[in-house]
């Protein structure tokens, strides 16, 4: 099993077996000093990253959906194997309908895999929890709550006293630059602002894992670019483990440490591309045009576009 995995994802072959065992031994192995992601650039950083303990481990995840009353089940995920390391930013790309969001839901504990195992720090996921923060494409803000109250939502679930909640929520609203809009309601905000609130809300209860399901998919190009840059800053400041589902190859390469490419439905992990890019991704406007960036983007594109073709031909042949 391990051998098959290693063969399929060359990146795993470089992981010393001992480390995996260590990470399975329990929560003590997970600590990564905050800020370490800031320095994590270039080849050295990639090596350092591969030394970190595994945070999320998915093995042979399968999931099918019942379709209508005919009783047919359409397989969505078929044997997904994936390790996400502590403090790592992993982007998941794949053709539409390949099950990326389904996989994210399973990691979030919002739906259950039919078979296979999903462990966080060596413990099987039993359901949703505050150790994970989720950001959805549709923002999912509570319309009857103000920005401040929305960001406080997870903190209420944690049972923090009101004063402390306010304080933490304000801090995170500042982080996404919305301090002037604390008392507004979601319908008074633009799409980009709403998504910032959703990000602040997901970060406020300080989860170790951030799960983002096409968070910028509904935004216009300019807003999307702005938020990508802000995401880079947030990544540096918070050093969370991030699973980031996206349609955009460029976004995936720009933001992440590794990009996992999924096959068309039923989805499995086709390949994983290491994004060892030096330089400051956030502040350099020319970054996206650099040769290394373009080359990586092309690599991911190559892996993906076969699958997109397959997904499309399946659709037309129906």
């Amino acid at each position, binding site marked *: 099993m391990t051998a098959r995995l290693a063969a399929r994802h060359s990146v795993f072959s470089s992981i010393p077996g001992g480390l995996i065992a260590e990470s399975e031994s329990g929560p003590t192995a997970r600590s990564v000093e905050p800020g370490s992601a800031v320095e994590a650039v270039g080849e050295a950083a990639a090596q350092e990253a591969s030394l970190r303990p595994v945070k999320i481990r998915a093995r042979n995840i399968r999931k099918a959906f019942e379709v209508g009353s005919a009783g047919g089940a359409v397989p969505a995920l078929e044997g997904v194997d994936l390790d996400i390391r502590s403090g790592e930013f992993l982007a998941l790309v794949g053709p539409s309908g390949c099950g990326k969001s389904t996989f994210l839901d399973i990691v979030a504990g*919002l739906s259950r895999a039919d078979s296979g195992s999903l462990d966080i720090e060596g413990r099987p996921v039993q359901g*949703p*929890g*505050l150790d*994970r923060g989720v950001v959805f494409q549709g923002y*999912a803000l509570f319309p009857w709550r103000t920005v401040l109250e929305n960001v406080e*939502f997870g903190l209420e*679930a944690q049972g923090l006293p009101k004063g402390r909640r306010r304080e933490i929520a304000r801090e995170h609203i500042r982080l996404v630059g919305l301090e002037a809009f604390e008392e507004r309601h979601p*319908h008074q905000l633009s799409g980009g602002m709403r998504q910032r609130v959703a990000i602040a809300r997901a970060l406020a*209860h300080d989860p170790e894992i951030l799960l983002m399901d096409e968070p910028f998919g509904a935004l216009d190009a300019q807003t999307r670019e702005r938020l990508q840059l802000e995401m880079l800053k947030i990544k540096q400041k918070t050093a969370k483990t991030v699973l980031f589902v996206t349609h955009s190859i460029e976004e995936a390469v720009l933001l992440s440490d590794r990009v996992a490419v999924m096959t068309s439905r039923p989805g499995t992990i086709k390949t994983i591309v290491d994004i060892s890019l030096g330089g400051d991704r956030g502040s350099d406007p020319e970054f996206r045009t650099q040769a290394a960036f373009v080359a990586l983007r092309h690599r991911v594109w190559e892996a993906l576009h076969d699958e997109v073709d397959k997904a499309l031909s399946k659709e037309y042949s129906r």
Partner: protein
Amino acid sequence: MSLIREVQAVLVKTAAVALFLAVWEALPRLGWVDRSFVPPFSEVAAYLWRSLIGGDLSRHLAVSLGRSGLGFGLALLVALPLGFVLGWFPAFERFVDPLLQVFRQTSAFALFPLFILFLGIGEKSKVAIIFYGAQWPLLLNTISGVKNVDPLLVKSARSMGLGRFALFRKVILPAALPQVFTGLRLAATLAILIIVAAESLGASSGLGYVLTNAQYNFDLPRMYAAIVLLALVGLATNFILVTLENRLTGWKPQAVRF
């Protein structure tokens, strides 16, 4: 500037009603319609004022409001909790829905003889028919309010580890509130509509009784006064409910009071 705007807004809002009242006043005075069938509005208003201050209309008003209020209150007590339960347990809702549809399509007035048969001609049957009529919009709107809560909001709340009870209190309840209020306003309107009919079928007090009684006695100012009073009761009820709604659901674009 803003004062002028406000005055303007009030003028726009009241213009049509004022025009209607002016026509009502003018037509009988000009002799274009028979005064004995349609007395001018000012006479009706004067009669209404006199009989509210010194006469018996205030007593009849209180009786009608008491019956409507009681029926409406009972409808609230029963239909709200039931609606939330049925919306929350879709399997149960699917089971009882056909029965609900059958009852809902049965006119409250068709059942009135039955109410009288079992509860007598007195207060009970009147309160019962109001309760019966008013609880439907309340029940059905509450059910659909709960059922139609944006699943993404539920998903989002669940992702933050909320249990069933907290989910209900913090997401389902506030999300369903606007539609519950739609039900409340429909129910209040119905409670007033039904009381008129119920009181004209067998009563010795209440505005519905005044209305039919005045018609039999050809006491037209009194009949019109009762009609105007019922219209005012309807407006006032709606005003109160919308004010309450805007206070409780202030996060969404406001409902219009009149």
